């Protein structure tokens, strides 16, 4: 009894030594995550690299207005971003399907081998994916060698510089890279399903298909919905690496997503202020969407996701 009381008192009594230990680690958090936020002020000035902010003209919301009125570049970039985001959303069901198929395999060894091989690409960088894609799909690539060797095509094609192929080709690449990894969370969910459910269904005369459809799918739907809600918050953050690596003068028109545009505008054109303004708008939209997704999750599931 005395012990319990002591503990309660200890809980209320704060120990400032802890702050002293924590401080050295919170300094980098402030320096690298909070200080950059002050950089947002340059979105309101006509700021050029190399000059002082104090000598820059205050222009108010000029760059935000430019963002809304720039119909040529902005609409193209937003269109690309939304297309990639939608394709990502459409293919987000594939890891679940892959996990169900993998679970139906009787030979555990076969399933484990397939799983190990298909998960590996998740851990290599986009630079390496590009290097492989170059070796396989470029004009001198092995795909052309094989196709021409078999007499299936007359002249070599270069998928990496094919504007018409950009959307589906990039989507296939990202599916290739992430499908195996994405399925692991579903496999974990499937292994958590009670075996009794399957046995009871089997006794009732349900075949394999009906058991998969009526037990497996509903059981992992919860996982799918949580991941879907989480992805809403990241809907317009389709990524940077993949598009940055795969861009070339031919495909840039369709590959340029918001993050890549911010990069090119800022660091290649030195248009610091406008680039910062676009980045700000993007951050705010993302925050609102994360918040919205969280509220939605609270309503649908009763618990928040973040």
């Amino acid at each position, binding site marked *: 009894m005395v012990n319990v009381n002591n503990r309660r008192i200890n809980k209320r009594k704060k120990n400032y030594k802890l702050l002293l230990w924590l401080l050295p680690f919170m300094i980098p958090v402030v320096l690298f995550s909070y200080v950059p936020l002050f950089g947002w002020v340059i979105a309101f000035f006509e700021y050029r690299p190399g000059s002082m902010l104090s000598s820059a003209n205050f222009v108010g919301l000029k760059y935000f207005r430019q963002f809304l009125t720039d119909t040529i570049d902005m609409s193209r970039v937003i269109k690309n971003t939304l297309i990639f985001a939608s394709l990502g959303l459409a293919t987000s069901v594939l890891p679940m399907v892959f996990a169900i198929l993998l679970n139906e395999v009787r030979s555990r060894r076969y399933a484990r081998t397939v799983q190990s091989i298909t998960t590996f690409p998740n851990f290599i960088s986009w630079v390496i994916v590009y290097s492989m894609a170059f070796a396989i799909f470029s004009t001198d690539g092995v795909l052309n060698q094989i196709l021409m060797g078999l007499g299936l095509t007359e002249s070599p094609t270069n998928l990496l510089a094919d504007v018409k192929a950009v959307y589906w080709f990039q989507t296939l690449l990202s599916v290739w890279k992430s499908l195996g990894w994405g399925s692991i969370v579903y496999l974990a969910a499937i292994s958590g399903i009670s075996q009794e459910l399957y046995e009871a269904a089997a006794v009732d005369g349900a075949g394999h298909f009906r058991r998969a459809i009526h037990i497996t799918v509903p059981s992992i739907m919860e996982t799918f919905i949580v991941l879907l809600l989480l992805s809403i918050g990241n809907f317009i953050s389709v990524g940077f690496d993949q598009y940055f690596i795969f861009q070339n003068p031919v495909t840039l028109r369709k590959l340029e997503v918001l993050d890549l545009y911010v990069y090119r505008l800022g*660091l290649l054109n030195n248009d610091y202020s406008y680039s910062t303004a676009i980045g700000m708008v993007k951050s705010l939209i993302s925050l609102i969407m994360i918040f919205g997704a969280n509220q939605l999750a609270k309503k649908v599931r009763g618990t928040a996701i973040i």
Partner: protein
Amino acid sequence: MVGKDSASRTVFNIFNYFVLGIFGLICFYPFWYLIIYSFSKPELANSGISFWFKGFSLYNFEQVLKLKGIGRSVLISVARTVGGTLLTVFACSFMGYLFSKPEMPFRKFLYRMLIITMYVGGGLIPYYLTISAYRLTNTFWVYIIPGMVSAYNVILVKTFVEQLPPSLEESAVLDGAGYFTVYSRIILPLSTPIIATIATFGAVGQWNSYMDNHLFVTDSRWNTLQYLLYKFLNSTQELTTLLQKGNTAAYQQQMKEASQLTPMGVRMTITVITIIPIFCVYPFMQKYFAKGILIGAVKA
């Protein structure tokens, strides 16, 4: 319960094995292609190679590692991977432990302050200006300091430490041990699964990163292997200069020996070299996939 399969079930099984097998092959083949290309004789590989080695040879590896800048970039990549991982593991595990202490003043506020960093960022240009203002550009430190504290790793450790029975600490605290002693003597040894998780995933992240190199480091002395590969993939010019140019007699001699190298061969060989370390830690990582998913979920 395992009765005779119905005909439709058998058809499905065959179809299923086939589909999974095909996708497995699609994932495997690019890696296989890299291996057969880089381990073949350069001139034979250059004339076309698709499924098997053509004149097995280690020539590519022997020569590529001698090329100017490659050896050093391997060292830089190893250094940032080891240094960055040690630093982030120490920072995140210690912070995770500190945040698990209810007696910390302002704990909720500070913890929220950390979590917010996962969702709000200044954006590219403000970040770039900040790094420049700290004079971190063209230094090795830019690879390991800014990413030192990762909020999701702290969450992982905190969640793990909170599950440990409090009695484990109590005797040490009664003996007068301070927070750091408890952390290093008791918490750290008990947290190996979660430490291994953040260490392996962190190490792969460090090894794979090139963007910090591209944005903040123009001094080629600090180039990492990933970035060199990126540059070679992007400009054949860069690569041919490397293969042709030589300023010293010794270097020219070396280049004469390397004259059989082809641009594609060099690319493939460097790609293989960058994959090898990941391939080596992969079996180890598979043990921590389940916890890694949590990393992925928190990250998302």
